């Protein structure tokens, strides 16, 4: 497989403009004739579907929830970046670009990141015009905050519900287009396969989650905006429905899967309370602007009430290790630091898996009122879940799986290695390299959907000839039968264990061996255990009910089955990458406790190519060149 990133030539700042001019346009009169399938109605999917329909294309949009508004983007709290430099604090497109490349530990594609920084500005304008009620100053202009370890204030936010407001903006645009007849919406439909004809993506197979009907849909181009695979760890901050199914099926149809081992573990989540735990709740990173992270210096003190631990017996380890960034150190670094102190036995709370996030100083500074104004809804959520009052008792937090930088490989036009199959948002391997900075995923999802894909997909359609295909084409029929057989097989096993119990076990394996810190031995063990577990799954899972009606266990089982295969790919990638970078920390490769990159051997994108169930996937490499930002060790000390 040959990976052509299609990066335009010329100086970085001019690439996108140049490319936009060079791309072919579709005659407005013909746009209606093109049918585009968009899978996903999150920030990426909804913004793309709406924008494409506005341009005149004939769009079908799919989502597994009951309404496009429920896509997981809704849960994003902290904010969205935009290089507006409204604060006059030295921000610029160049700086956002630089921060993102560096934050990604030099494992992202420069050209894409630069374009992202460029359009970030338009995103804010678009969202405001849609009526997104961003926070404002008394003067009536937009407010900003510094977020996720950035030294400039470029983050726009709407209370602790930024993702919700941005998604509602995109959702409303989508509903507007549905009303106008440009988009046909398929809610409660799960995509279970991509259909390719002569190697070109021409449609998908879906299951109607209410009637159970398996259907084929043909189109001229397919777009996946199906989100991340963080749920492979079972416990994560992702919504219950988040899955790898869509992208993994595309992978099995020939789309390369890039950097699966780049997973982000978020440092500030509410710790696990017990076996019953079904998800972990994120406490927005913005809390770290005012909260101080600490654990007791001595193990003996861990049992005691936080209030009883004297100031001099507290270890504010982030401030100690990273004086210049302190509590705002990037996510991967903060998460690992938390793991270290807990491994040393200095963790607090149930099972010793937690660290304190303490607001007492901030409250002393700005008062309870001040803190309530900034984080009220988050602290209330914490209290609701833990029954502890964060205003008087320090919060307990612990890292949890949160985001997947890895995803389907795409070129500069956001097209995967399957012609016609475009991938946007968290689902692609994205612009975040080995680690994503806070408030930049919302930015990327909307950049892809509003401002990049609408151009590049037009170029694809204008550059190729499409003869109509109908869904009774052999490829469609075989794909459809494949899906039906798989469903029947899952229903037929009638074993003893629930799909959830397998998912939970898979999560434990991955969290243990392929979580915040990884090493060869552990990964090899995981690669032993996962196939065994998968084996048992297909022998012993039980899926009650039938396939011809709403059957949530069937949906769940299908997703777990894919996670069980994907988890192996994840470990394989982690094992092959013999360096530490961003979210991928290999214990063998460190320097004084800090990640040690190996730019000689690993300065590339690892794009895995499916080679059949019997044989191991093939590794393809896209070398990364850095013209504008010079490779440097990422230091936040």
């Amino acid at each position: 497989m040959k990976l052509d990133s299609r990066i335009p030539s010329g100086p970085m700042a001019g690439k996108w403009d140049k490319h936009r001019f060079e791309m072919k346009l579709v005659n407005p009169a013909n746009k209606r004739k093109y049918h585009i399938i968009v899978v996903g109605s999150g920030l990426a999917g909804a913004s793309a579907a709406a924008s494409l329909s506005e341009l005149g294309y004939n769009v079908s949009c799919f989502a597994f929830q009951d309404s496009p508004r429920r896509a997981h983007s809704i849960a994003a709290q902290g904010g969205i970046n935009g290089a507006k430099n409204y604060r006059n604090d030295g921000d610029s497109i160049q700086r956002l670009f630089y921060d993102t490349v560096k934050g990604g530990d030099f494992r992202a594609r420069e050209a894409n990141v630069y374009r992202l920084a460029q359009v970030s500005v338009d995103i804010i304008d678009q969202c405001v015009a849609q009526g997104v009620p961003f926070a404002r100053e008394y003067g009536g202009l937009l407010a900003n905050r510094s977020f996720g370890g950035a030294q400039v204030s470029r983050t726009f936010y709407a209370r602790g519900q930024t993702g919700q407001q941005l998604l509602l903006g995109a959702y409303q645009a989508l509903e507007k287009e549905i009303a106008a007849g440009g988009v046909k919406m398929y809610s409660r439909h799960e995509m279970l396969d991509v259909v390719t004809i002569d190697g070109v993506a021409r449609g998908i197979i879906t299951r109607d989650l209410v009637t159970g009907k398996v259907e084929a849909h043909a189109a001229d181009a397919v777009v996946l905006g199906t989100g991340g695979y963080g749920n492979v760890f079972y416990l994560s901050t992702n919504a219950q429905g988040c899955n790898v199914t869509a992208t993994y099926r595309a992978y099995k149809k020939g789309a390369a899967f890039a950097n699966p081992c780049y997973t982000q573990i978020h440092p500030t989540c509410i710790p696990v309370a017990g076996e019953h735990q079904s998800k972990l709740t994120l406490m927005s990173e913005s809390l770290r602007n005012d909260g101080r992270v600490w654990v007791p210096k001595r193990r003996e003190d861990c049992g005691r009430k936080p209030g009883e631990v004297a100031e001099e017996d507290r270890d504010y380890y982030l401030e100690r290790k990273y004086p210049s960034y302190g509590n705002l150190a990037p996510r991967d670094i903060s998460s690992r630091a938390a793991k270290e102190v807990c491994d040393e036995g200095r963790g607090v709370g149930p099972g010793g898996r937690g660290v304190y996030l303490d607001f007492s100083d901030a409250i002393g500074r700005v008062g309870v009122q001040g803190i309530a104004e900034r984080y009220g809804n988050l602290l209330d959520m914490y209290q609701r879940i833990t029954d502890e009052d964060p205003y008087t008792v320090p919060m307990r937090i612990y890292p949890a799986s949160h985001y997947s930088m890895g995803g389907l490989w795409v070129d500069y036009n956001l097209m995967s290695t399957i012609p016609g199959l475009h991938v946007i948002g968290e689902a692609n391997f994205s612009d975040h390299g080995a680690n994503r900075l806070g408030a930049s995923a919302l930015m990327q999802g909307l950049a892809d959907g509003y401002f990049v894909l609408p151009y590049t997909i037009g170029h694809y359609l204008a550059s190729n000839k499409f003869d109509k295909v109908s869904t009774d084409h052999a490829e469609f029929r075989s794909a459809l039968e494949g899906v039906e057989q798989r469903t029947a097989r899952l229903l037929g096993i009638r074993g003893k264990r629930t799909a959830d119990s397998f998912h939970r076990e898979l999560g434990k394996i991955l969290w243990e061996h392929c979580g915040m810190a990884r090493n060869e031995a552990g990964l090899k063990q995981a690669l032993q255990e996962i196939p065994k577990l998968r084996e048992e799954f297909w022998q012993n899972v039980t899926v009650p009910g039938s396939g011809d009606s709403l059957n949530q266990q069937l949906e769940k089982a299908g997703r777990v089955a894919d996670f069980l295969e994907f988890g192996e790919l994840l470990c394989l990638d982690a094992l092959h990458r013999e360096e530490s970078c961003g979210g991928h920390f290999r214990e063998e490769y460190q320097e004084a406790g800090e990640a040690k990159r190996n730019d000689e051997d690993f300065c590339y994108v690892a794009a895995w190519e499916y080679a059949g169930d019997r044989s191991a996937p093939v590794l393809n490499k896209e070398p990364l060149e850095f013209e504008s930002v010079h490779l440097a060790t990422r230091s936040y000390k």
Partner: protein
Amino acid sequence: MSGTLNLTLKVWRQAGPSAPGKFEEYAARDVSTEMSFLEMLDVVNERLIVAGKDPIAFDHDCREGICGMCGVMINGAAHGPNQLTTACQLHMRSFKDGDTLTIEPWRAKAFPVLRDLVVERGAFDRIIQAGGFISVATGSPQDANALPIAKQDAEESMDAAACIGCGACVAACPNASASLFTAAKIGHLGLLPQGQPERYRRALKMVAQMDLEGFGGCTLFGECMSACPKGISIDFIKRMNGDFIYASATKRDEQVLLGAG
């Protein structure tokens, strides 16, 4: 702190949209007080599945009170007994050992039951389609700061925009009225300058769609407000009525009213 409870669940079971439904009783033993209400249902389901029985179907996704997918009647209260709390955020410590919980789906003509506790809320999407948006094509807008918006207006608009579309307002309303949901969107957009051009048109169309979907009218019972997990005020219903009356009286719904009230 943490403890365990033994509860009796009376759950509405219904095989399909047209199938007849009935209540079934289940014993939920050793429920940890640290569990969320949905995690309690997970545990009950795990046991049902292993016993070869059909698990209870219920909608949920984010499990942190923001996606609006979850929601059931618990002992006659939408989303359960706690204020400003969705079913997924409700924790079992809110119940006592030995309690009996009656669990029902949202009930409204416009929200048909699909299975057990799962209902179809597409009517909400259609209400939004009728006018719950600002018509601005991608790429057309001016600079974000070209239009100052008073902080208090932005905040009030945000109060309404916080709606998660869960449908608890409809479920709790004795009239099964969607007034609070509809009014929240009309309020969110109508309080912003960007929302003015379509303000009155929006009010007329969204109200008309709300009626068309078969929701009831508003008698101002106020139940919706107390059930709403986002605490959206019935003041927005008043605002919706005001916009509707103005629009009907002036018939200027099709015209541009920049900067109006």
